[in-house]
């Protein structure tokens, strides 16, 4: 073996040294016909496989937040903003009269509504300081006017590996989770994915 594994091959694997492996080999009685270098290569590759298997096995159902704060299409924006602030969250699914998820409303949508063409909070501040706040203009509007629609949703069975890909590709931070009947069952956020780091010391999922 000439190409020793790089960190990349065992992404997320705990650092392991030849000395660790030699120490482990001493604990196992009997002669192991493998060099520490080869063992390390096997270990890092096996770790990557295990990590992918776990991430494929863990689904939205197991990591989602079930007690979902939701708003209705006809909720006034004033109330929606108050609710998000109260619950300390930055976004929520929007449901219609039948309880179907028709969109998501989040800080990003409010920022866009406050200062068109601006994409950050500091952008809103700068805009307000220059031209005066447009927040009052939103006062009488409803969630339906500002929400991102249609909602990007996932199913309860969607593996977290796939969810991470969707978040990255669509540039979103949360996705409502639907059950097999299409009803809102929960929500997964980037924070929920962070709790998943597969690491022996941090407790695997």
């Amino acid at each position, binding site marked *: *073996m*000439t190409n*020793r594994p790089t960190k990349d091959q065992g992404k997320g694997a705990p650092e392991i040294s*030849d000395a660790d492996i*030699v120490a482990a*080999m*001493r604990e196992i*009685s*009997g*002669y*192991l*016909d*493998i*060099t*520490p*270098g*080869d063992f*390390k290569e096997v270990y890092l590759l096996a770790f990557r496989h295990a990590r992918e298997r776990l991430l494929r096995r863990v689904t939205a159902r197991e990591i989602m937040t079930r007690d979902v704060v939701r708003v209705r299409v006809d909720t006034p924006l004033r109330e929606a903003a108050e609710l998000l602030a109260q619950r300390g969250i930055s976004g929520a699914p929007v449901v219609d009269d039948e309880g179907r998820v028709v969109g998501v409303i989040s800080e990003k949508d409010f920022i866009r509504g406050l200062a068109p063409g601006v994409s950050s909070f500091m952008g809103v501040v700068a805009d307000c300081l220059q031209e005066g706040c447009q927040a009052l203009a939103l006062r009488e509007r409803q969630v339906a006017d500002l929400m991102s629609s249609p909602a990007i949703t996932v199913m309860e069975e969607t593996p977290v590996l796939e969810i991470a890909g969707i978040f990255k590709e669509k540039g979103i931070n949360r996705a409502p989770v639907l059950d097999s009947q299409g009803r809102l069952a929960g929500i997964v956020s980037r924070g929920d994915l962070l709790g998943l780091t597969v690491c022996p010391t941090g407790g695997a999922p």
Partner: protein
Amino acid sequence: MNYFRKMRGTTTSPPRVSLSEIFWSWLGAFAGISLLAYLNYQVIKGTGWLLLTGSLGASALLIYGAIKAPFSQPRNLLGGHILSALIGVCAYKLLPGHLWLASGLAVATSIAVMHATRTAHPPGSATALIAVIGDETVHNLGFLFVIIPVAAGALILLLVALIINNIPASRRYPEYWF
């Protein structure tokens, strides 16, 4: 430059085994090889048959001294020796006047066939070579060489390995059969 750097090596040698491991390796090899040699020199003397070949001494290191290694498992021990013996005898019979070519072919082919059949057992290649460069006794056996000494000798060493390697609590043999 990279080509020469590869010759420097990249890792360390495995640690030395415990004294008890050394003891059980010694005992297994002593029992196995002594038994074969006794049968060879005392029991079948004068029959023109053989039970000992040099390659079985190499097998002793593996099946008594490195009992966890894939090389040392029954599939590899028996498969490697038997297939290689067959290849060696064929090489000698096909090219009796060209020992240099028969030697190279026997060893190289035995490696290829052992890899292909997942029976790699290093002493097998020695068996293939012995079939070519061996003395009159070996050559007179013809294809019988595959059965005795090779298959029979390997089988006897395997029986001794099963008995001796499983005595200490710290040892277990085999890891797998086939």
